[in-house]
């Protein structure tokens, strides 16, 4: 198997933070890989180091050990290789909706004209073209997250990181957003690593789920999600769906050593 087959490869990634009374180990050797066009979710207890892991993949903080590879190249400590959708929409309040999308594309190296055309085209496709020239404060939380996702989807970086993208939304909006994202992603497959707290969300969206333990985080289990695509919301009533949900729930609630 050639290395470039993996969109992302983490090789024994470790991270400790210096603190009074010694080092605090947060990531205790994480190895995982994501295939091209694969949707992988990470699920783990709060404080297990998921956001920290994303900071390492994004090249924002030094690793205490291990390597990050993307598309067959060692990108450890390098920035600019990922498209990112954070928990808060993180839209620049002084830029219009279209302007925000353009900004992300321009920073990734796309020229202004092309970025503009792409943004305009896609805003129409997700039926938000009426808001293209509005400022973010005029949008609901759910709409802002759609823009935030679109911005990441259109960015040319080879890999998408989504850090609890729907964590701040109410349950109903969240469910609608999951369905929406599922539809768009299935039509435009990109390599994705998603952090979530919701087992249902992970099961609905992912090809594979990686379960982390509490800090220092190690991989407890890796679950291949067997449901065929395109998936529907009716999945929620599938007995297999509920069995897997139960299994992951128990893994997350194992007593920590």
């Amino acid at each position: 198997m050639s290395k470039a087959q993996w969109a992302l490869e983490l090789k024994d990634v470790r991270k400790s933070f210096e603190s009074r009374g010694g080092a605090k180990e947060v990531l205790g050797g994480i190895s995982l890989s994501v295939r091209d066009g694969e949707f992988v979710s990470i699920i783990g207890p709060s404080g297990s180091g998921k956001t920290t892991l994303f900071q390492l993949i994004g090249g924002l903080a030094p690793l205490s050990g291990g390597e990050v590879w993307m598309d067959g190249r060692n990108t450890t400590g390098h920035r600019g290789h990922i498209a990112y959708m954070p928990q808060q929409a993180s839209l620049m309040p002084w830029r219009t909706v279209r302007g925000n999308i353009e900004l992300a594309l321009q920073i990734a190296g796309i020229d202004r004209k092309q970025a503009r055309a792409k943004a305009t085209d896609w805003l129409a496709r997700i039926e938000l073209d009426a808001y293209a020239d509005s400022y973010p404060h005029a949008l609901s939380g759910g709409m802002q997250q759609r823009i935030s996702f679109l911005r990441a989807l259109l960015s040319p970086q080879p890999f998408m990181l989504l850090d609890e993208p729907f964590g701040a939304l109410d349950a109903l909006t969240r469910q609608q957003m999951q369905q929406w994202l599922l539809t768009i992603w299935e039509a435009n497959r990109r390599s994705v690593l998603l952090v979530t707290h919701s087992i249902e969300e992970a099961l609905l969206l992912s090809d594979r789920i990686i379960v982390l333990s509490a800090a220092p985080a190690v991989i407890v289990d890796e679950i291949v999600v067997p449901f065929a695509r395109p998936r529907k919301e009716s999945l929620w009533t599938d007995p297999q769906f509920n069995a897997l949900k139960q299994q992951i729930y128990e893994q997350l609630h194992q007593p920590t050593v």
Partner: protein
Amino acid sequence: MDNSKSRWRSIFPPILVIAVLLAVWELAVVWGRVPEWKLPAPSVIVAEAIAIWPRLMLHAGATVQLALIGFTGGAAAGFALAALLHLIPGARRAFYPLLVLSQNVPVVAIGPILTIWLGYGILPKLILVWLVCFFPVSVAMLSGLNDTDPVLRNYMRMIGASRQQQFWRLELPNAVTHLFSGLKIAASYAVLSAVVAEWIGADKGLGHFMLISSKGYQAASVFASVFLIVALSLTLFGIVALAEKLVVRWRPAKEAKKV
């Protein structure tokens, strides 16, 4: 329709108060037989202003020129210094306390020293106005540049924005509202500091004109100058506020109203 009505409702009370005040002033002067060289009635001031209008305009022209050049230069320098201190690692931490302290120095007090050093030409006066406008802009700009939302900063870094891109695309636009609050402070002091500079030493300008008028006990002329100075100051402030409205269009409506 509704909007102009509510605007009228908010403008009307202060106008009424001012009108009443002027009327009381006028009547008090007339009935109390206050001598004109002490306190002229508003009607006398208006009459005097009309009589000396050409001369008043000549002096006002000099003052406006001084205030505008000083304001523009000071604001530009304040902006540039803030950007520089922000971009040079460590410089901000070293200079910021000094800048904040300098705000407590009554800059106009430096005026006489500037005259000793530089004589009576336009240069010491310009430097005075320039200094008065420089500090509020640099301090506001510097704190604005540092006031970037950490969530946005993290986002920009995650998607690979360079230091330069972070400055132009995030920190600078974020600082614009701060910049304008600094510019508004500078604008409201620019005309005043120009007048003070002209007191210290000048052969033209409203400050100079006030000085010779008061020496000649021409209170009406002094008052006419004061009203003109207030009007000029308000105009400059209004221009900056208008520019802010045109530039900062993205602010939510409810926040814009608070100012």
